[in-house]
């Protein structure tokens, strides 16, 4: 038998290269260990790299927009206090190093959260409870960028539609139209039924807002990189909107199903609470699903990049980058998929709420 095809296999070649890389890096890490004593004094000045804090910092919201190296944009801080509204630049905190004397209190950034400090420099927990942080944070700005992009894209597409009434789609319009038709024909119509057109605006907005935020989150440099859809508060807001839309559009059959289900009377004490929990749990699942999926993607990518810093070796970089590339491509799919699933389930819930029962 001829085995030459095995030697020609691309897979094999790739794994050989990978194993060579890994062995080189293994030798290198041994070398690092042996050299460790020598460079320890030098490293002692630098902070030890802690991947957990680094990754969590990257996926969390922030009062700064970190661009690269030591460069970061301070973002405006807006505080609603019991005495009035405070408004100043985040630069005043110097990344939490210094407290800032505001109009009403002295504030300090503790773990990127604003706390009131007393005269002794200690955090005043009681007064901290009186201030509400309405700052324009990184995620807020990212959200605005996403919103602005959506407005630019869809207003221009809408104007194309007005200009080319009744004609075949052209240019950017023909890129967008299949997606809109996808939302209408694959998401709204099969799940909601003939009343779908009323819910199209909210479904389209949810779909495209999630999708564009997911995509922007995948871009590692400035306009992107924020983890908006991987922020549980953002998904909480979306889920709340879904909850409101579903329950406000619900008809009498839906409420009858919840409060007067077709079960023996003695089961009511069990059924009604279960149904009521169901009202909350469905949007809750939406919230967790989107948050967890997008955060997980960001964490995996950041972990792979962190490998370079954990091993303190540039040789690991090609492996990391290869895996990150793979993950990013996967995340492109996930970005669409999660937007689709969120919208799809929203449509499904609306569908159950507006469904006409004929008993």
């Amino acid at each position, binding site marked *: 038998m001829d085995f030459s095809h095995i030697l020609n296999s691309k897979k094999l070649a790739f794994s050989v290269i990978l194993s060579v890389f890994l062995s080189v890096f293994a030798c290198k890490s041994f070398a690092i260990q042996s050299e460790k004593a020598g460079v320890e004094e030098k490293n002692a000045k630098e902070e030890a790299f802690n991947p957990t804090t680094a990754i969590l910092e990257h996926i969390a*919201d922030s009062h700064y927009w970190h661009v690269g190296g030591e460069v970061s944009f301070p973002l405006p801080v807006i505080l609603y206090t019991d005495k009035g509204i405070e408004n100043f630049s985040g630069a005043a905190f110097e990344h939490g190093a210094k407290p800032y004397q505001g109009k009403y209190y002295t504030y300090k950034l503790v773990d990127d*959260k604003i706390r009131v400090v007393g005269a002794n420099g200690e955090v005043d927990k009681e007064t901290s*409870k009186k201030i509400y942080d309405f700052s324009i944070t990184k995620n807020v700005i990212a959200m605005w960028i996403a919103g602005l992009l959506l407005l630019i894209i869809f207003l221009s597409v*809408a104007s194309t539609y007005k200009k080319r009434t*009744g004609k075949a789609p052209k240019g950017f319009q023909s890129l967008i139209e299949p997606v*809109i038709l996808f939302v209408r024909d694959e998401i709204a119509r099969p799940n909601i039924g003939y009343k779908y057109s009323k819910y199209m605006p909210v479904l389209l907005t949810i779909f495209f807002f999630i999708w564009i935020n997911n995509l922007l989150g995948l871009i590692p440099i400035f306009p992107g990189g924020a983890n908006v859809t991987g922020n549980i508060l953002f998904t909480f*807001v979306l889920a709340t909107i879904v909850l409101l839309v579903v329950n406000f559009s619900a008809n009498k059959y839906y409420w009858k199903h919840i409060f007067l289900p077709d079960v023996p009377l003695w089961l009511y004490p069990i059924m009604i609470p279960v149904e009521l929990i169901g009202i909350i749990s469905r949007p809750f699942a939406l919230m967790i699903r989107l948050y967890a999926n997008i955060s997980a993607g960001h964490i995996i990518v950041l972990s792979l990049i962190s490998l370079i810093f954990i091993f303190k070796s540039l040789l690991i970089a090609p492996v990391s980058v290869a895996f990150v590339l793979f993950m990013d491509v996967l995340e492109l799919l996930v970005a669409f998929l999660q937007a689709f699933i969120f919208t799809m389930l929203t449509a499904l819930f609306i569908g159950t709420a507006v469904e006409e029962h004929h008993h």
Partner: protein
Amino acid sequence: MGELFENLLNDHLGFVVWALVAFVILLVLLGKFAWKPIMAAITERERSIEDALLKAEAAKEEMARLTNENEQLLKQARAERDLILKEARQMKDQIINEAKEAAQAEGARMIEKASIEINNQKAIALASVKEQVASLSIEIAEKVLQKQLENKTQQDALVADLLKEVKIG
């Protein structure tokens, strides 16, 4: 766990409000200026395409109907033409026959007339010939007589002859 939820509202209410505001503004703006015209345009286009398809189908049916009708008409026309041709042929034959008959009749009539005329003319001619012959005969006879009867004996002989002849005649 308690630590996690401490100051939850203080730290995060702002973001929730901003997100809500952003979403609602986006929903309103996109809903009014993007989704509404886009969906309307798509629906309108689909409707017009469906309309056009239906019309095409109707036109096809109409076409088929017309073709059918044309064929029917053609068939009818052909039949009519055949009928007319047949009638014409019959008429032609009839006319020819009639003409033949008339010609024959006329011919016969003319022949008859001619023969009558001929007979008449013949009779007239004969009569005149007879007359001329008679007069000539008489003249000749006269002259002969004159010559013969110059003397008395000849006159008597003639009278005797004539009398003989008359007896025979």
